[in-house]
């Protein structure tokens, strides 16, 4: 464990240039009171408000997950009836997708970390950032308000024509999703401008941390795909409210058009969910393996190419929705191309690990989990991309398991890894590393116990979203339910020890993990404008001059030239 480290105890030979004692108050303490948070323009505070909203939503969505897994313990009614069950899986899906996974890494952690990684004082448009947050809060409130307003039983996909007929609170949900969409668009827009215009001098595109590349790709998709979701749910709202007929076949409308619109957003949305996770994993693996990332440019380009390809594959959700055969074949072929950039990333991460000085911190455990789970999730995606196989597996638990491996096993695990990696930076407190490692293992074990049996079940024909099932599936369902509880308990403990660290955690040093990106030069926690003095640019992912002076405390040695003279750092500001 880390020994109490103060900033003035620095070995003489490692005296560090810009890392003297911090004189300004940190962003958590610079102002006080409710208003100072509610009206803050500070990206870190906004990010933290997002973070706690997201953790709350995670608990809510997780509760629904556990409830529906409990219901599936035995065939027939276990705790609730079929209508309530429909609401459980709908709310689980909607909350997890719209409130947790999509904003999880970009809006919460990205908001906190991205400007610091860039060496910028804030995002480009702080007021827009705050309004994004309030849009998110309003959308989240509406989404949760569906519960008292009659529930929501359409599935998170809100497919027509059922969503036009059901008596549940579809309009409340669509309005909520509309607001959440614009929250996402404005965040993406903000990030794009920030990354373009706030890079310090000397930080070219290929000196950017890969996390920022990933956030960049994500932001492109947020700005270009989310508006289509916006107009789609708007149309759905107007259709329900005004009976305009655009999705209603009785009036000449086309319900499949809704599916096209929906997946034109929601397929890129899958990459809005996963690409930030990939960026985080690049950071974690490089840092904890003490090696520069293998094939930096390829990892960077693969983020962008995933972002672009994601716009071309939405039809693979609709192989059995009555698309033309030609469209099916084209979409199927395009789907396979997604495997290329994904595989590039995985191979590069593995190559980075090779002969690395691997440190199994909590963050690294999550990163390794990600590698395994994402590989499984990605490969099973290829199964589903094959037309003939998809007809068999469509709408079965195989699909459920596949996308949980990607969305939860990959994105949420990356989110947890990122949370542990940067938690000391923005809270200034170290969490309990032992608990962290155990919980990381618990999440990994629980997750696989939950979803591996679902692959088997699905391949044997268990349809998704069913309340009842044949007894032959019961063993699988029970294993799955046990796994879900292991997962749930691990996550609950994680949230508890993280929150507890505010009071019990040790004070975190500037650089507990030996990260090489700029945020580790900022004070811990950062000051209001992130840096007291302009950060010094070093070669990206070069760990050679970083030395662990005491456990969990790294310092950068003074760079010297061949004669031993100190090389003056380049300030960017």
């Amino acid at each position, binding site marked *: 464990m880390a020994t109490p480290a103060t900033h003035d105890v620095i070995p003489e030979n490692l005296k560090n240039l810009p890392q003297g004692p911090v004189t300004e108050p940190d962003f958590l303490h610079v102002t006080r009171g409710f208003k100072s948070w509610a009206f803050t323009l500070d990206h870190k505070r906004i990010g933290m408000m997002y973070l706690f909203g997201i953790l709350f939503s995670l608990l809510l969505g997780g509760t629904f997950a556990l409830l529906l897994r409990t219901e599936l313990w035995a065939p027939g009614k276990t705790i609730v009836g079929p209508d309530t069950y429909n609401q459980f899986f709908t709310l689980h899906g909607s909350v997890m997708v719209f409130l947790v996974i999509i904003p999880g890494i970009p809006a919460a952690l990205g908001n906190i970390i991205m400007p610091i990684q860039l060496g910028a004082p804030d995002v480009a*448009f702080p007021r827009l950032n705050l309004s994004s947050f309030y849009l998110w809060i309003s959308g989240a409130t509406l989404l949760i308000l569906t519960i008292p307003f009659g529930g929501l039983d359409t599935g998170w996909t809100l497919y027509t024509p059922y969503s036009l007929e059901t008596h549940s609170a579809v309009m409340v949900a669509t309005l909520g999703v509309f607001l959440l969409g614009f929250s996402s668009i404005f965040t993406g827009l903000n990030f794009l*401008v920030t990354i*373009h215009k706030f890079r310090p001098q000397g930080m070219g595109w290929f000196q950017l941390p890969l996390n920022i590349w990933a956030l960049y790709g994500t932001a492109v998709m947020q700005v270009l*795909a989310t508006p289509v979701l916006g107009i789609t749910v708007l149309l759905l709202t*107007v259709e329900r409210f005004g009976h*305009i007929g655009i999705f209603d076949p009785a009036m000449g409308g086309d319900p499949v*058009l809704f599916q096209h*619109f929906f997946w034109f957003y929601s397929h890129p949305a899958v990459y809005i969910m996963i690409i930030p996770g990939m960026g985080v994993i690049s950071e974690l693996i490089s840092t904890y393996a003490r090696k520069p990332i293998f094939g930096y440019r390829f990892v960077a380009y693969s983020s962008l190419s995933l972002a672009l390809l994601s716009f071309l594959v939405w039809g693979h959700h609709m192989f059995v929705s009555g698309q033309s055969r030609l469209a099916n074949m084209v979409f199927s072929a395009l789907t396979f191309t997604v495997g290329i950039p994904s595989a590039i990333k995985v191979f590069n991460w593995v190559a980075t690990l090779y002969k690395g000085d691997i440190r199994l911190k909590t963050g690294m455990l999550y990163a390794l989990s990600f590698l395994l789970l994402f590989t499984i999730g990605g490969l099973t995606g290829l199964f589903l991309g094959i037309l003939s196989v998809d007809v068999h597996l469509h709408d079965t638990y195989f699909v459920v398991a596949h996308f949980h491996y990607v969305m939860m096993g990959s994105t949420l695990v990356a989110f947890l890894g990122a949370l542990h990696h940067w938690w000391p930076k923005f809270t200034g407190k170290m969490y309990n590393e032992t608990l962290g490692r155990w919980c990381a293992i618990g999440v990994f074990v629980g997750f696989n116990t939950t979803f591996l049996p679902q692959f088997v079940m699905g391949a044997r024909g268990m349809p998704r979203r069913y309340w009842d099932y044949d007894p032959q599936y019961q063993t699988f369902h029970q294993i799955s339910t046990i796994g879900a509880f292991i997962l749930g308990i691990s996550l609950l403990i994680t949230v508890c020890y993280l929150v507890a660290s505010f009071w019990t955690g040790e004070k975190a040093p500037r650089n507990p993990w030996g990260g090489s990106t700029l945020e580790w030069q900022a004070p811990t926690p950062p000051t209001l404008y992130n840096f007291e003095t302009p950060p010094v640019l070093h070669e990206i992912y070069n760990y050679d001059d970083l030395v662990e002076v005491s456990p969990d405390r790294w310092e950068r040695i003074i760079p010297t030239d061949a004669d031993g003279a100190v090389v003056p750092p380049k300030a960017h500001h």
Partner: protein
Amino acid sequence: MSGDDHGHGHGDQSRFIKHHYDDAQHQFDSGKFGIWLFLAQEVLFFSALFVAYVLYRVHHPEIFSYAHKWLDVKMGAINTSVLIFSSLTAAWAVRAAQLKQPRLLIVCLATTIVCACAFLGVKYLEYSHKIHEHILFGRYFDPCVSPGGEELLTKNNECSGAKSTISWDPGTGKASEGCFDADKHDTDIKLFGIQADCQVFEQEPYKAPVLRGSATHDCTKTREVFASVEGSGGTYTFTGDCDTLIIKGDKNQVTIESVKHLTVDGAGNQVTVTKVDDAKASAVPADPKVKVDPKHPAPYVAASTITFAGPPVEGKYPPKLGPTAGEVKPDQGEKWRDKVEIKNQCPDELLMKLNAHQSESGASKEAEAAPKYPCWRPAYQPNVCPDQTTPEQHAHGAATKSQFGVLVEYNDKVERGDDVKIRAECKEAPAPKPLDAMATANKPAETDNQGIHPIHIASEHEEQEIESLGPPPEHTSMFLTIYFLMTGLHGLHVFVGILVFIWLLVRAVKGHFTPDYFGPVDFAALYWHIVDLIWIFLFPLLYLIH
């Protein structure tokens, strides 16, 4: 935010340069990039509607070619030029801000706002006309007129001139009011005129007069066919042909020239009917309260005397008595009577219009010879009633669905409220033709064969013209759905633009904008250009389809 004052100031730069930017240029560049991204987002936001437009237009070209004629190209053109001009003033405003010309800046911004308001004003005119005529989307699509100005039937009878529907019910063999064939109608002009053989009347309501004291009432003159006498001890005279009379009071002297239905409910009345030639009076209600005059074997009201003064016609006595007082309550409500018979001449009238449209001179004679309105004809009413065609009729192919529907359509431009009803007396629906007979009938037959009136074989151009005169094709509401979605969303953007430009105007009056700091004007102008650009796409796509 002013509260965020940060250590490093920006020297003599505008006070609106935020602390986290390096300088004014940095802030401007960031804003510009941001607004371009926002506009990209806007394009994607609208894109779904354009995709829907393309999809539905490819699948249903006929509804686009039919319904776009409802849009007024003049209005659209005015709006297009107004928007283009406002784009110019918006761009000019940017230049004025850059060149430090505050007065010009204010003028340009104000002009932009005025133009935007003018745009919305024209939109208001277009929308309110469509709302009034029920040319609306989805379920509310219930147009009063076709794009060719032809009056149409509406579901709710809400429009002036267009009235109720009559259908022939093959089940009961009777005409019924309200519904006819639902989902399909025949847009083929050649089949116009297939109908059940009906006599159709417009009915009008009237309130039965209630007479007290002594009165003389002329049934013929007022065309009132229903009256009641409630006074007691008076003397009443009814002249002309009365339809229904009810005498409720006691001890009255009533002289009636002629009556179809007579009810005497009071006691001690002396009723004299002078002209007893009612051919329709045949049934005698077995009412125990009515006592029969010795001369005439019919029941009479107790203590009342009814005298038939005129010469009896063999087999026609007595006049039908009743309905009984319990059945008819004239003082409680309305009664309907036939007002005018509606001739079945509409198919010719349609053709007449077409001819008049094609050649003004040649058609004038025919137009003069055109039948007087109102008239009725088979027509189409969207999505109201179930299909009444039987499978056998389908199998024979003769029973086109419009056979069972007649649209009663007025063209006399008289505003009618809800107080108009249609009554039809129909003969049998045309019998389905056997298949071989159909084969011969399919040749251009000129004869009136079993209710089929092939009136005209139209050329392609004529069909297009007639199309816009006739009833709308199926799912025409989809065009209006798309029209209202696109222009509505665009109008919303114009409205937001007005708010933004008002905000800019206020700031310009305060003198906030300098060559150092004019970003907001520039960004708003860019937004305004994209709003303009979207309209430039919408105008031809919606208004100028050919």
